[in-house]
């Protein structure tokens, strides 16, 4: 199998997953799905709420200033199904987290993936981040 064939197979397979996207409480147009932002920080609070959950992460900048980022995910049942539980992100948990950032530059993003300091990976949408 050539590299080009592999890329074609990969692309076709990922394209086939697109219809799995669902509509939620609100549109996701405020997020830039063409961009990704990744930050390292410490969990401030996991707001496990309907219709959307928010993981608040304190990120310390190079100047020492702390900015609280919010990463939005679906509500509790979707997170439970995707093995993301409140106890996974207790306050103080160190992690690296990736999402689609807000278009307006505010420190918030649509949560795609998180890697805790112990190496455990979480995909709150249940999809591999590359398919988003």
């Amino acid at each position, binding site marked *: 199998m050539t590299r080009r064939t592999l890329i074609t197979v990969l692309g076709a397979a990922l394209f086939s997953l697109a219809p799995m996207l669902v509509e*939620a409480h609100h549109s996701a147009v405020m997020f830039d799905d063409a961009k990704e932002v990744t930050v390292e920080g410490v969990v*401030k609070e996991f707001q496990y*709420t309907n219709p959307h959950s928010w993981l608040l992460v304190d990120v310390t900048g190079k100047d020492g200033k702390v900015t609280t980022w919010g990463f939005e995910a679906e509500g509790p*049942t979707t997170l439970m199904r995707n093995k993301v539980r409140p106890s996974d992100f207790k306050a103080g948990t160190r992690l690296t987290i990736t999402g689609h950032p807000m278009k307006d530059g505010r420190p918030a993003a649509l949560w795609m993936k998180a890697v805790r300091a112990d190496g455990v990976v979480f995909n709150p949408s249940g999809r591999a981040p590359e398919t988003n």
Partner: protein
Amino acid sequence: MTTVKRLVVLALVAAASATVVAQQQQQRQAPADWQRLHQMGLAHRSASDLYATLKKAAGGGKVNPPFAQLPDWSGLWTTAGGGNFFSAGPGGVMPKLTPATAAMVKQGAENEAKGISYDENLSECGPPGYPRWLVIPFMREFIVRPEETWLSSETVNNVRRIYTDGRDHLAVDDRFPTYYGDSIGFWDGNKLVVHTNTLMARSMGRGQPNQSEGMETVEIWNTLDAKTISVDVWLYDPALYTEPWYVNRRYTRVDNADKVLRMNYWHCGENPNNDVYKTPDGSTQYNDFTFTGQKEQGR
């Protein structure tokens, strides 16, 4: 790992994912079945007529059947896809829309392409309503009793009540529009046959046209296997469609062996960080975030 090896691994993962999707598609309705059922709708000039035909074919249907004769729809379910209200069916068959509806579909698609989208109902935790209920995501519970079946959805805590105790719709002069309409039904073996009318005129989905108060539907709910429920739906709304449209939707039982999953109440005010508003151009934006933490706010 070389680049080629990485690509091989990625391709295998993607192919496995595609296989899952393909298996889901195999569970979908056969095109010949879709055509047959679509034709059944076309052969009846109204939902009431179709419902009457189905009831006659079922020998009047069963009302108040004993529990032992009812299907086991216990547990949690979620949508597994199927047809849509305004897109092509198998073979590219398109719904026949009124000019006004076609214009609304076109406008919705253009707005979506521009990234302009707002949900007049769900964004404010308003009811999705029916028939939109059929396509909304997240958890569902189906409570089946002899005299009544509840079709509930986690999204905005909505419940459809299907009366199977032999009652009729309200008298014509006493009818009034509601979000989920008035649904009566009967059992035909393990199939639940439902007629719904008196629906509100409102949006059928984000960026989609508005249904009219003339919308009426017939549904046949049926168990395909232990993990799959199918519903055939015939939609009659002369303000939307110049001829009835048929869709098939599927729902799959959610694995909950450890029983951690449960449906919870939806309230958009629970977390102020979920507060959105409609922008001047008709799109969606968040209000100011708190990000101060619920505990710090004393909640």
